[in-house]
């Protein structure tokens, strides 16, 4: 069952074994279906479905082995492609940016909606990159800060009638405070202990949001969250003088609001990118990267590990908070359901698939993951199944992510690409 090229007979035997394993795996869950009836449960057999799946595994394994024999060097095509992307980074990024800025010109409303979603995840990914990619602190509860940002905006906006632009920084700051608050107790923890505590923190926030009904509305969430305005101009079709359409003497259309939201999130995402790129060159950013490589050496060199870790948590959380406030204003409705562990996992997988610390990689990964899962929207039932499989396959094929190389944040003379294998990651 190894990946070595083998003769046709061995391949057949291997495929038959795989089919046998598949039979064991799927006999119970695909072959038999539990059906509730009036007097207890009943089983319905699905032999055809089982046979098809087992046959598919057999043929798939046979094809895979044959392909490996024909092309013994593994998956060079994808690797070469990714290397090309890495090296062409300086050209790819502007093209990407141009395509993103021009999207409202050529994309329809559906494209805009997807674009807004993708950009939200790009922004979350860039925010989490600060924590995981730069400072090397494994955070499995990033969604908590996203939730704090969203609820801060929603609660302050609905209760005190403050505008989006006033509350955006407030949400970010509140989320950053929570980040620092979480940072304090976990300062001494390393690696996986940190991971489980951050995961627990995310769950705590969610449970509190569900159960503190008097404040958060419980699982019903908060509705009628105000939409953002452009210098006080609203986006609705009421015809009032302070709406965008009337002010500019344009016919009203819903697309205007989508275009506006799209540019807001694009600007926010670019801000995140710009700030983290600048931060990386500051002593603070260099301390983050040094911390990721070796915490003991950092201490020996006199870097204040406490401050360094807390700022990383705070910064990452702040951008999560911004994204959360945007999410709330875009949806107009939030509930704890939107902030479950799956979101944290999704953002983390975007960061890891992006190559941990590569800004362009995160953007690419977000487009691939979110855009890809949008493609399967019609197969709603199977969407998450395919998503999970894709995650496993992508990790197995490219464990270092799509863009597996980094330019150093600071260098003497020419900047050379560093292979990602040389960058230690997530050692907390």
């Amino acid at each position, binding site marked *: 069952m190894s990946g070595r090229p083998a003769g046709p007979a061995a391949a057949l035997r291997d495929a038959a074994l795989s089919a046998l394993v598949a039979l064991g795996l799927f006999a119970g869950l695909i072959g038999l279906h539990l059906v509730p009836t009036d007097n207890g449960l009943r089983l319905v057999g699905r032999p055809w479905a089982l046979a098809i799946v087992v046959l598919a595994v057999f043929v798939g394994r046979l094809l895979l082995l044959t392909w490996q024999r024909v092309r013994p060097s593994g998956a060079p095509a994808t690797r070469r492609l990714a290397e090309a992307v890495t090296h062409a980074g300086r050209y790819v990024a502007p093209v990407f940016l141009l395509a993103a800025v021009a999207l409202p010109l050529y994309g329809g409303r559906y494209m805009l909606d997807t674009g807004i979603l993708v950009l939200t995840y790009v922004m979350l990914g860039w925010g989490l990159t600060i924590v995981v990619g730069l400072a090397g602190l494994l955070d499995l509860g990033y969604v908590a800060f996203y939730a704090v940002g969203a609820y801060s905006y929603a609660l302050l906006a609905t209760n005190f009638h403050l505008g989006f632009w006033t509350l955006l920084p407030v949400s970010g700051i509140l989320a950053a405070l929570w980040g620092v608050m979480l940072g304090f107790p976990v300062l001494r923890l390393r690696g996986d202990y940190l991971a489980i505590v951050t995961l627990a923190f995310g769950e705590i926030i969610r449970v509190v949001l569900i159960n503190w009904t008097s404040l958060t509305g419980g699982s019903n969430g908060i509705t009628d969250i105000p939409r953002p305005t452009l210098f006080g101009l609203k986006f609705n079709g009421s015809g009032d003088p302070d709406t965008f359409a009337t002010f500019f003497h344009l016919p009203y259309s819903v697309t205007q609001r989508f275009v506006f939201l799209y540019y807001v999130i694009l600007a926010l995402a670019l801000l995140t990118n710009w700030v983290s790129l600048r931060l990386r060159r500051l002593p603070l950013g260099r301390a983050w990267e040094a911390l990721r490589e070796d915490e003991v050496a950092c201490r020996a060199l006199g870097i204040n590990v406490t401050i360094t870790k807390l700022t990383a948590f705070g910064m990452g959380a702040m951008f999560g908070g911004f994204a959360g406030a945007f999410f709330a204003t875009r949806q107009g409705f939030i509930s704890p359901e939107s902030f479950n562990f799956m979101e944290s996992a999704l953002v983390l997988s975007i960061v890891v698939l992006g190559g941990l610390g590569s800004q362009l990689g995160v953007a690419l990964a977000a487009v691939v993951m979110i855009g890809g899962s949008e493609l399967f929207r019609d197969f709603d039932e199977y969407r998450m*199944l395919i998503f999970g499989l894709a995650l496993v396959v992508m990790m197995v094929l490219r464990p270092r992510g799509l863009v597996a190389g980094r330019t150093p944040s600071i260098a003497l003379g020419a900047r050379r690409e560093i292979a990602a294998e040389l960058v230690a990651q997530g050692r907390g």
Partner: protein
Amino acid sequence: MAYALQQLINGVTLGMIYGLIAVGYTMVYGIIGMINFAHGDVFMVGAFLTLIGLVLLAGFGITSVPIALALAFIAAAALSAIYGWTIERVAYRPLRGSFRLAPLISAIGMSIVLQNFVQVSQGARDYNIEPLIPGSITVMTQGGFAVELSWMQVLITVVTLALLAVFTWLVTRTPLGRAMRACEQDLKMASLLGIDTDRTISLTFVIGAVLATAAGMLFLLYYGSINFYIGFTAGVKAFTAAVLGGIGSLPGAVLGGLAIGLIESLWSGYASVPYKNVAAFSVLAIVLIFMPSGLLGRADIEKV
């Protein structure tokens, strides 16, 4: 007093189930140093397979509860052992020796796959069964409050203790256990000394899956209701238990499981039910602040 005793009994029962799952987490972590996120979902798959087995046996007219349970468990354990083996083979082995986050993401992906596979193949509803083991004994009565110890709770405790005894024997007394402990100490050195590390790791996953299936069966019998999502919550709780006890330590996993179970049931009994998870997670955070490697974990020695 009587109420406290009742909560204690409930907590220990719950803790036993968590402990069984936690052993799987801690074993895998001890040997290959990764969080096997899909383990909670193997527990869920085990519960489903047991349920399917029970319904199938009832269809064949086997109504004797002990025989049906034993047969269903053996079948379910064998099948979910294949799950454990396949998951390791497909999603983790290619990533062994890769950097630390790659297997974690792969494991999260595998967890999503298992959850949605069961949702697609069996449906998203709750599946309920009649209590198979009814009845209880009254331990004591105080002021009109009777402390009940149900036969189900007795069964859970007995099965867990028996499985843990077998498992402890396996780890401490057999060649496989010796190989596992060697791999835990130093994987590379163990393979240099002629231990088939691949096989040992595969078997570790198989054993973990069998224990998780046992936990799944007990969960099914105790609560009488399962759905495709039970794996996540139970998995997170069991992983918390493993970390609380000191990840990599087998007695620690059981101790951590008991601690989490007790915290949950005491908190539900005396404070508020919705916040029981908050209580469990908070205790985890507090313990880790003062004992960064858990209750029974070995402290990491930092080498420079």
